[in-house]
């Protein structure tokens, strides 16, 4: 029961704990208080057996088996759970893919030459993408290529195609499997719309059929919308390269105007970075008594900036209220996704200006400055100016910034990883074959106040690297592991001997920051490239995924596309499916025979590490590589 227990049980981070204590002292409500007020949470909903899709309902099924077992329409627990899960996937996929569309539209307008504050920063990547999409590059200028690429990608959002442009990245075996199963995504928006259709009363009443379409829907995100977002962001804002920056609330500077960039979409934040260096605005900040303008990142907008520009990171999902509690944040600029409506309430207790920027994401209590790419730089200047003006209202007596920052390395795009390996996956493959690296695991996903903040991410990551498993991180997990000191080259000391040797030879950390949550597509791209290099399918590789502290619908879509791509995935938080043992059995067992991968749910990261290690050794055995008998893998002497 959050709220009544010790602060140390809520977060494993000292900076967070200090601010939670302050919130309690000053009577400021935070996410943990609201969770406590919600408890007990509805068991029907948690088990996934409530349905309010029509007005013959709402209905619920008694999980104890004696009360009602069917909704008014006749839907049983299997159908209701599948409907709910299907809609959850569609919402998550829609969020990612709509983010991708926003990037794509600005990319298209940039190609037309009508934007302000944008340029094609990575034309090498632009040409590589164009060639991948079958667009002529020879003798054409970048804008011309970009215009045609934008058109081709926009077609992927519609229903005129039968497969997505990025499908060819996949091994042929996987493409054939999806064809056979009928889950090849056809259009990015189409699959989401079809899922809403199927889950309307009286359409798809076969839970297996609904869930298969759930996989197709998620694939339209992973190999569609999210991939568009990642790849075009690289073209417009630069493909990330390894860089060192810092993390935690200590990234705020008492002597500066502090502006946090929060949300997911880098479109606006990149231009704000330019505006923060505008001499006129820097002079204005100094005139108001500040030494300069300090930008910090939050959540995935922060990850996007840290990956490409080394902007310091204030924190992950559960830090968004706490960063305001420092009393030193002058403006929080938000775009969309994962921004709690509560931030404007916390901001009311301080001088902080919350500035919303997306017309599709407005917040009561925020100042709305509508983002328009045609006037990008002008708007960015207006936003920074608003932050500087708020700084003038800051009460220095209320500033309490937890001291200290931790250094972390970011910027591991697929291009950067291959670059570090000398341009080919061969050294990585050889290290895996020799057993120096047992395999690789994506530890990704959010924070959830039901799990002690960052405990799941950090414990799991530590156990994996100790056992020579390379860890790839994105999203909130990247911030958590950065704060835990696992993302500098020196952290190789915390890795097992084989992984340590490889990290030291390459000068890289054992935990690689691959970006924001849409950038999980970088992990997909890397996994597919490894499989193709080895002439096999992704599900044969010693890989796994984990989301120890996930909370969002987007995370459900990610989990589904990772599994459908052939990668075993362990969830730390229960999805709302347990009301249907049939659905649980399908996802946790049956799927293995369908797509070569399945889900597991394990709250304890120590046990999750064991599940993953056993899985990786089993995959090594399958490839004929040296392996450890799974029975010999026991709990680490923690």
């Amino acid at each position, binding site marked *: 029961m959050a709220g009544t227990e010790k602060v140390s049980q809520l977060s494993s981070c000292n900076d967070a704990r200090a601010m939670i204590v302050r919130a309690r002292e000053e009577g400021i409500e935070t996410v943990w208080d609201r969770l406590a007020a919600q408890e007990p949470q*509805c*068991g029907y909903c948690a088990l996934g057996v409530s349905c309010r899709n029509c007005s013959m309902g709402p209905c619920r099924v008694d999980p104890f088996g004696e009360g009602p077992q069917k909704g008014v329409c006749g839907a049983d627990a299997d159908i209701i759970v599948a409907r709910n899960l299907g809609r959850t996937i569609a919402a998550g996929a829609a969020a990612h893919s709509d983010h991708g569309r926003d990037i794509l539209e600005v990319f298209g307008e940039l190609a037309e030459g009508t934007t302000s504050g944008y340029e094609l920063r990575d034309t090498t990547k632009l040409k590589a993408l164009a060639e991948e999409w079958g667009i002529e590059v020879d003798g054409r200028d970048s804008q011309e290529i970009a215009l045609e690429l934008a058109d081709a990608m926009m077609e992927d959002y519609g229903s005129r195609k039968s497969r997505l442009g990025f499908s060819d990245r996949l091994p042929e075996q996987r493409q054939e499997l999806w064809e056979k199963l009928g889950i090849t995504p056809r259009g990015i928006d189409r699959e989401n719309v079809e899922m809403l259709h199927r889950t309307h009363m009286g359409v798809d009443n076969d839970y297996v059929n609904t869930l298969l379409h759930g996989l197709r829907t998620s694939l339209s995100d992973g190999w569609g919308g999210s991939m568009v977002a990642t790849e075009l962001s690289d073209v417009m804002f630069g493909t990330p390269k390894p860089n060192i920056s810092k993390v935690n609330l200590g990234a705020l500077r008492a002597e500066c105007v502090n502006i946090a960039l929060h949300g997911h979409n880098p479109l606006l934040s990149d231009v704000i970075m330019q505006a923060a260096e505008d001499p006129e605005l820097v002079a204005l900040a100094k005139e108001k008594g500040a030494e300069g303008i300090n930008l910090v990142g939050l959540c995935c907008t922060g990850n996007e900036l840290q990956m490409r520009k080394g902007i310091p990171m204030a924190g992950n999902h559960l830090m968004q209220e706490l960063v305001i509690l420092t009393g030193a944040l002058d403006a929080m600029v938000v775009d969309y996704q994962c921004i709690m409506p509560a931030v404007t309430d916390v901001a009311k207790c301080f001088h902080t200006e919350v500035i919303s920027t997306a017309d599709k994401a407005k917040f009561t209590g925020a100042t709305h400055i509508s983002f328009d790419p045609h006037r990008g730089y002008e708007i960015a200047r207006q936003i920074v100016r608003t932050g500087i003006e708020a700084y003038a209202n800051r009460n220095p007596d209320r500033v309490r910034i937890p001291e200290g920052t931790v250094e972390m390395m970011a910027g591991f795009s697929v291009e950067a990883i291959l670059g570090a390996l000398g341009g080919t996956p061969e050294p990585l493959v050889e290290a895996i074959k020799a057993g120096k690296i047992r395999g690789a695991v994506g530890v990704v996903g959010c924070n959830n106040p039901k799990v002690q903040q960052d405990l799941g991410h950090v414990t799991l990551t530590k156990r994996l690297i100790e056992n020579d498993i390379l860890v790839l991180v994105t999203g909130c997990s990247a911030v958590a592991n950065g704060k835990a000191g696992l993302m500098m080259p020196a952290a190789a000391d915390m890795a097992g001997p084989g992984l340590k040797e490889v990290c030291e030879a390459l000068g890289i950390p054992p935990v690689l920051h691959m970006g924001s949550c849409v950038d999980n597509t970088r992990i997909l791209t890397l996994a597919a490239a490894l499989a193709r290099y080895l002439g096999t399918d992704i599900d044969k590789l010693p890989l796994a995924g984990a989301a120890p502290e996930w909370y969002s619908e987007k995370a459900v879509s990610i989990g589904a596309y990772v599994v459908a791509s052939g990668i075993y995935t362990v969830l730390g938080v229960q999805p709302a499916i347990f009301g249907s043992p049939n659905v649980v059995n399908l996802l946790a067992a049956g799927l293995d025979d369908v797509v070569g991968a399945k889900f597991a749910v394990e709250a304890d990261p120590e046990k999750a590490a064991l599940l993953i290690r056993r899985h990786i050794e089993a995959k090594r055995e399958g490839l004929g590589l040296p392996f450890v008998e799974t029975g010999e893998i026991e709990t680490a002497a923690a």
Partner: protein
Amino acid sequence: MKTVFVNPERCIGCRQCEFACAVEHALSRDAAAAVFESPPPRSRIHVMPGRAYNTSFPNRCRHCNPAPCQQVCPTAAITRDTEHDLVLSDAHRCIACAMCAMVCPFDAITFHEKANGMPARVVALKCDGCIERTTAGRLPACVEACKTGGLVYGELNELIAEGRAQEASVVLTSAAAGESLSARPPENVTGWRTWGATATELNEGVHHGRH
């Protein structure tokens, strides 16, 4: 003696009993209209979270006999309806001194504004056993709302005997099959509760020896 009996292991925390109780005690007795009433109608049953996630208990007046609340009430606002064996509180006589709440073994009495056709004032609110419903042959509102068998209405000894019979059957079956008693709830509910217990222990540092 007929009563509302609680099967705590059946409570899944949906709080629909709370909602139904509040509506039953609204002037309108209609969910859509009740939310606009002032003062707002209040539930007399409270679903409280357990220590672990995914556990909860619906707490309501047990209609004790003798009732400590009745014994200490200085204005005799709390009385026993001997016909239905219910402890009832008369808002007109209540002086909101809260003595009843202080001695209640279950902390089941709360204080909120009530109108009663007069200017609203804070009085003791407690379960009235849905006396109007039961005399009309209907189930108490909380019991009617509960679809999992967490709240059931009937003769006390019969309900206890029913549980006893189930336990005996499980004990004998388990003894014969060599299975543990914990296998009793359905698999889906067990999985849900196990996750809650594990996550709670993890947060509390039980697995890590930290406190």
